[in-house]
């Protein structure tokens, strides 16, 4: 996608892509720490393996494309993609699951479209969506916050899938609320202490991502438009349905703090390459994602909806850009 320059580039802000990637990765750290605290070392292992494999694949593809390898890796974009994918994947993933995701994210979603800056879809979300379609069973089992594997157990499980993790996994609350089977959300929570523990864990993790996101906002890595629009539209829709029938529809708080809502709002949809460019465009882009997340979460067949919502709005970003192009100052009104 060729981005039009929407404002005059008079002064250079010094925001090179390397610096931005580094800042975003740093801002992920609170979230990573919270996920490790609540769900064990799985996420960390995912990230280590994803980043290693991602760098190797990036180098391989750049070699095939006969382009310089070193700048492509040192700009940090591939590392960030792999970190985001590793954060999004379930903690009890295995090496081949993460490997297939990274392969698709780096080779198919990024380089087949022309590499950094030319990819219409967010590579991490392409990898995630592919895995969700290809391995629904492995992708919908999430770690339980109540019992955690030790690092060694987790490491062994990651590479060999030996042993059992049945006691250490559970469905996410969003998944559970979708399959109520006659009971109300209130009853389900009362009968399943695991769901409440999970909601608590999820709240803390979301707050950690919120903190990281606000830090990036303060550093002006991105503007507030897309995240605020996304969270507002998701919250408003949840409010609309949740107040009418609180027994069947999760509340706005649950929608905002469960699943990947805050992670997506600050770390996924703010990707400058695949989102809309102008401020008005970003508002529409974010609001669209929030709306799609609510729709797919509530009436779709997958437990969380962030990847599909983001990919659908990635697809519409060029169109949004076309209709929200700001007028040049002093030009005619039409």
């Amino acid at each position, binding site marked *: 996608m060729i981005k039009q320059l929407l404002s005059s580039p008079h002064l250079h802000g010094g925001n090179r892509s390397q610096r931005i990637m580094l800042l975003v990765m740093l801002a992920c750290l609170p979230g990573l720490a919270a996920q490790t605290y609540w769900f064990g070392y799985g996420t960390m292992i995912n990230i280590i393996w994803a980043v290693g494999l991602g760098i190797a694949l990036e180098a391989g593809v750049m070699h095939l494309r006969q382009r310089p390898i070193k700048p492509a890796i040192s700009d940090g974009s591939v590392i960030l993609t792999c970190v985001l994918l590793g954060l999004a994947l379930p903690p009890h993933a295995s090496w081949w699951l993460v490997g297939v995701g990274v392969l698709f994210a780096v080779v198919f979603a990024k380089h087949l479209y022309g590499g950094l800056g030319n990819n219409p879809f967010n590579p991490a979300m392409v990898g995630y969506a592919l895995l969700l*379609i*290809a391995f629904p069973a492995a992708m919908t089992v999430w770690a339980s916050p109540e019992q955690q594997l030790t690092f060694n157990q987790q490491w062994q499980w990651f590479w060999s899938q030996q042993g059992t993790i049945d006691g250490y996994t559970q469905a996410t609350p969003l998944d559970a609320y979708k399959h109520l089977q006659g009971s109300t959300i209130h009853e389900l929570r009362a009968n399943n202490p695991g769901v409440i523990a999970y909601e608590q864990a999820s709240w803390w993790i979301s707050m950690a991502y919120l903190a990281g996101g606000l830090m990036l906002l303060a550093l002006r890595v991105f503007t507030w438009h897309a995240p605020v629009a996304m969270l507002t539209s998701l919250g408003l829709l949840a409010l609309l349905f949740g107040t009418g029938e609180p027994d069947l529809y999760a509340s706005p708080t649950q929608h905002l703090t469960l699943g990947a809502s805050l992670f997506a709002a600050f770390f996924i949809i703010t990707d400058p390459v695949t989102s809309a460019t102008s401020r008005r465009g970003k508002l529409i882009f974010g609001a669209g994602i929030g709306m799609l997340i609510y729709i797919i979460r509530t009436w779709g067949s997958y437990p969380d909806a962030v990847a599909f919502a983001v990919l659908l709005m990635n697809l519409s970003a060029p169109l949004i850009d076309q209709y929200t192009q700001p007028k040049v100052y002093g030009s005619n009104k039409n």
Partner: protein
Amino acid sequence: MHAESTKLIKDGLWNNNPALVQLLGLCPLLAVTNSFVNALGLGLVTTFVLVAANALVSLSRHHINSDVRLPTFVMIIAALVTIAELLMQAMTYELYQILGIFIPLIVTNCAILGRAEAYACKNNLGPAILDGLAMGIGFMLVLVLLGGLREMLGQGTLFADMHLIFGSLANNWQLTLIDDYQGFLFAILPPGAFIGMGLLIAAKNIIDGYMEQRHTVAPSSGESRRVRVTGTIS
């Protein structure tokens, strides 16, 4: 005549392959190639219809008013597809049920109408049949290749359920490549077809590029060429 036949065969199988180059008939191609047996079944039926349609169109080409030739061709093809469909119901009923709507949809396979219009209605019976056969086999090879790849990736098997076509003869043809394979559902689902097809086309382009490079580099090495600088430079 001999050179013409060779050209027809080469065109159908490689240079002008209906699936990889003309990109015709992609709807059945993408929809049924989720296993080797489905791909082979549809490939055989399509080849049969293609050969028969080319033959009938070539035979009747002098009696068809050129203003109504397309509807006439479609009717000939539709009649043949109906015959194929009834034959399948009689002989391979299970496969007929699996392929479902994509059997009647062969009528709308533009590769068939394309050959009737582009070749059969201008040529004699012999070349027309050969063209239909080459194009049909070219189409079938791509179907089978894609079907085999998707089956291997998706289920970890090859030649599963071949008894649907070959009867009890093929009961133990199934190869299990990896024991206790998890299954890569993506390859079986429609997006896997699109990506697999894209990769096949890319592979063909790579091979073509490589061949062309070898062709052009070989003669020019060693001798210097004079460049024409007067008159028309082509």
